[in-house]
């Protein structure tokens, strides 16, 4: 009886262990595939060897639709929201030479940028997050994320119309139809980001580029605390393209 009891005990112990392993294994396996993206990362460099060139959509870029060019030509520099401390949205934000921070949580990934106090949250799928209403549009869009293999995939839609959404220097706007897909993977000690931007109103085809970042030992220099006066200082040097229109008094003053 004693042996049987021992055998039974062993069997029960084995079964319990197997059950425990059975429960934890999928979780461990899933965890093992989640890349460690946490930390502060420097401004990325283009993988095609163009330094930062791949992140710039040129003034007459062949990807631009006629509509995008027409908007560019119609709007004047002084009307750009950047002179009101408005932040850049993605993908144009990445052309700025600032570091960014990634924080991975169980149900979300938070991106904090070293400029404009921009914080984006990518809501991980299957965690019950409520999506925005179909008519809700946001400056930095609505982002959902998922892990695929060794990558974090973030898809962002629901952007508001952004007069500087593709390039603030060349007045290249983005529409509410902009969709940005980010793919983050580790590349040795570095971080690789591949960005694909679609906007059928403004782009003939997706605009895709890849950048690689190194870790930044410095913390982000935040808060940004954009000063309206400093943001608008250069406006006195910019003549209006529409001199017959009444002079604009910007708000808030």
């Amino acid at each position, binding site marked *: 009886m004693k042996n049987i009891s021992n055998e039974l005990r062993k069997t029960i112990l084995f079964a319990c262990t197997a059950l425990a392993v059975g429960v934890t294994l999928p979780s461990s396996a899933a965890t093992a595939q989640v890349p460690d993206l946490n930390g502060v990362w420097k401004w990325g460099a283009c993988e095609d060897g163009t330094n930062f060139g791949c992140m710039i959509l040129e003034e007459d870029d062949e990807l631009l639709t006629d509509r995008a060019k027409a908007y560019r030509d119609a709007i004047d*520099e002084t009307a750009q929201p*950047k002179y009101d401390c408005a932040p*850049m949205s993605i993908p144009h934000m990445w052309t700025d*030479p600032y570091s960014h921070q990634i924080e991975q949580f169980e149900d979300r990934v938070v991106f904090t940028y070293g400029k404009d106090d921009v914080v984006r949250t990518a809501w991980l799928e299957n965690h019950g997050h409520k999506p925005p209403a179909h008519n809700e549009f946001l400056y930095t869009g609505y982002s959902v994320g998922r892990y695929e293999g060794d990558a974090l995939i973030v898809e962002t839609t629901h952007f508001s119309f952004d007069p500087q959404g593709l390039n603030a220097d060349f007045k290249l706007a983005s529409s509410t139809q902009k969709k940005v897909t980010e793919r983050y993977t580790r590349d040795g000690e570095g971080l690789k980001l591949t960005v694909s931007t679609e906007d059928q109103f403004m782009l003939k085809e997706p605009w895709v580029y890849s950048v690689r970042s190194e870790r930044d030992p410095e913390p982000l*220099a935040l808060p940004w605390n954009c*000063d309206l006066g*400093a943001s608008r*200082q250069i406006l006195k040097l*910019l*003549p209006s393209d529409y001199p017959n229109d009444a002079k604009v008094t910007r708000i808030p003053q």
Partner: protein
Amino acid sequence: MKFFKLLSAGLGLGLLIQTAFAHHSTNGIYDETKVDELTGVVKEWRFINPHPSLIITVTDAAGQAHDWDVSYGGSAVVHLSRRGFKADSFKSGDTIKVSGNMALVEDSYGLLAKGDPTHADGSPIIIRP
């Protein structure tokens, strides 16, 4: 601008690499074909985002004083900090020299700085880390 006693320093463009990512585009705003030098008295140093700026009072050949806005283009506090600039780098009343591209709009008194300002005797103000 012609009223100012300005020294064409002839330092050439690209003296120092300036952050090129302004978004507050400087294209067509400054005369980038030449570099001039101003000597003036510091009125205000604004070490703030998005773009720090320096206000210096320059007296022209006719004895009239004008405030010049010295811009560092697209550079923000974090960029200038890494070049050695600090919130107290310039004090009101200091006489300094600064080189750069002048604004194209007549009598707008704007300068896009090229290189670091110096004391009046040419000694450095900014100590690079």
